[in-house]
């Protein structure tokens, strides 16, 4: 088991190094010069001497290999660098914004599970009936509507017409807890629509599959109460693939909530990344992508280790 864990950790570190290098190269190779852009804000035509000075100050005049060496050395010390725009430390900005994105995703996941899991179980138990077909159709629709459509319609209905909630934005929890939850509700629900549909489908097929297994038939034959069979023998076994799918989706959501963050003006990590790319703020881009990829790798590692715990065969593979 220890050897398995060590090997997996080694692969994880290698993956993170690969991502760091790839992102560094990619963002530097894309045309667009941060020094030029910084001095061109608001349609200004900067003086070439000023641009050259800034490039030198930011170290952008160095050969790419040398910049890479500097970047990697700093990274080994755990230093993500500072923003080219205002010298603000990238790590502290990520520390500020990552929890907001995680909060958004976490709330969305809770909502999605709260709706998707019971609905999926219900649909599986009544497979083929009208209620199953209605639920499955709804899930299909929920899956196929893009988040920005759900978000925009939600704003139109709940903020502009009914005026129940503010039209997006962000308020710190400490400043006004109720307002904080109010502005969290809409973006979280928007993500939960698609995620809930995924969980619904996964639960439905998984429960259906488990229902047909021998141990369930045996439990029925022993005369165990149906409710107990469903809770203890079916749903528990059906949960494994659902948890896996949820874990992977949460990982991709860390960097993939950009549309929702944009539509609702939620100051999380994704929106920050897009702005950093637009401004070619190299340290910000590499720092954010690195953190996202580390989270993703960690999540996968966790899933892998979970498999190993659940299934001894994996350990020796």
């Amino acid at each position: 088991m220890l050897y398995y864990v060590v090997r997996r950790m080694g692969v994880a570190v290698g993956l993170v190094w690969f991502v760091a290098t790839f992102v560094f190269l990619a963002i530097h190779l894309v045309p667009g010069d941060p020094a030029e852009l910084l001095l061109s804000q608001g349609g200004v035509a900067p003086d070439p001497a000023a641009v050259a000075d800034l490039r030198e100050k930011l170290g952008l005049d160095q050969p790419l290999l040398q910049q890479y060496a500097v970047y990697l050395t700093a990274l080994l010390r755990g230093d993500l660098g500072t923003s080219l725009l205002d010298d603000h430390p990238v790590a502290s900005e990520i520390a500020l914004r990552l929890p907001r994105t995680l909060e958004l995703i976490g709330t969305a996941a809770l909502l999605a599970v709260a709706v998707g899991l019971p609905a999926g179980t219900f649909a599986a138990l009544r497979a083929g009936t009208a209620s199953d077909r209605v639920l499955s159709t709804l899930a299909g629709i929920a899956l196929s509507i893009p988040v920005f459509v759900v978000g925009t319609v939600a704003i139109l209905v709940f903020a502009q017409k009914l005026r129940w909630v503010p039209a997006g934005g962000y308020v710190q929890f400490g400043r006004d807890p109720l307002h904080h939850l109010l502005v969290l509700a809409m973006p979280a629900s928007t993500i939960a629509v698609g995620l809930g549909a995924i969980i619904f489908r996964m639960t439905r097929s998984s429960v259906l599959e488990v229902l047909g297994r021998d141990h369930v038939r045996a439990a029925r034959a022993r005369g165990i109460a149906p409710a107990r069979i469903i809770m203890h023998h079916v749903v528990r076994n059906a949960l494994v693939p659902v948890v896996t799918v949820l874990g992977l989706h949460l990982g991709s959501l860390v960097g993939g909530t950009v549309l929702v963050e944009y539509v609702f003006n939620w100051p999380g990590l994704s929106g920050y990344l897009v702005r950093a790319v637009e401004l070619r703020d190299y340290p910000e881009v590499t720092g954010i992508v690195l953190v996202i990829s580390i989270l993703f790798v960690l999540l996968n590692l966790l899933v892998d280790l979970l498999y190993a715990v659940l299934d001894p065969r994996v350990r020796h593979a």
Partner: protein
Amino acid sequence: MQGVDRIETPDERTVRVVMKQPTATLSQWLASYHLPIISRKSDATQPIGAGPFVLKTQERGVALEVEAFPKYYRPGLPKLKGIRAIAYADENLRVAALQAGDVDLIEYVPWQSMETISNDPKLRLDATDGPFMYLLFNGTKAPFNDARVRKAVAHAIKREDIVNAAFFGRGSPLTHLPIVDSSEFFNPDLKDGWKYDLTLAKKLLADAGYPEGFRCSFLSTAQYGMHKDSAEVVQQNLAAIGIKAELNLPDWATRVTLGNRGQYDLAMGGTAADNNDPDGLANLIDGSLSPSYVRSFGVRLPKIEELLKAGRAEFDPAKRKTIYKEMESLAIAEAPVVGLAWRSQGYAMQRDVTGFKNLPGALSFNSGLTFEETAVG
């Protein structure tokens, strides 16, 4: 401010800025947002100026809060206790926030929402023509090194289509240099200098040796809808005189780099001047300045450069008027850039917001100066 030679302080209440060359526009620059007068005791987080508000809190990328300065030098002002400025990246959400009553005032009203806001009894729209769209050329190679070809392009564009397609009718055609008609430097007899005239455009193109037109690259950006939509209209219009322009629509950062390097034949530009003085046009048409994405690449017109220099050094308003009139008529003939459309720049607010005013023309972006008179309710 590289034109400053030295700054003297002969007594307690006098500052003398000595320029290397006579600069008629210095007072305009000193009034600019970009040149605040601050105390030497300021630091990066707390600038000390003479304004009506002081910075209270700052959440990077989220919001900024200021509160009234009780010892402001104008008694009774500011009327507001404070302002919370919230960043809304999405223009539609900005409008939604205003309509939902989350905010009292928004800037940069998207053109497609101006109609709805004007019709809303609870809201008020204050819009002015300020920024503009224009075309830039690469003058270092054929075909746009020939003024006749540039002028042919100028006469081939149906500008109403740009105003309608890109700005939902919120703007106006620009058939001369971007000098607003409320300016004392506006020249009424030159205002139709580049008016739509297909016959003239075809004739100019034939005179230049391209009776059948030609192919060229056309740089714009897909990042901003107005740049993309305007470019598409221009592309269609040019096809009518045989110019097949191939659109290149990278993101803005790439657009800036390609523009600075002159990697295009024809390019779409969009900007606003810093102030309403015609000297601001030098930024767009003075080919002696360094290459920039806001100027045509390598279009050198010595006479225009000379006139711009003369206008900057002249302090007599009447003489300046004559200089800039001559400069504009030359520019219309040589087309260093080509004006396309003014775009409406709007602020929208709740009905009970008073005292806030959208400043005219290029000053629109400085309208925050009227916050000292602004009140709610």
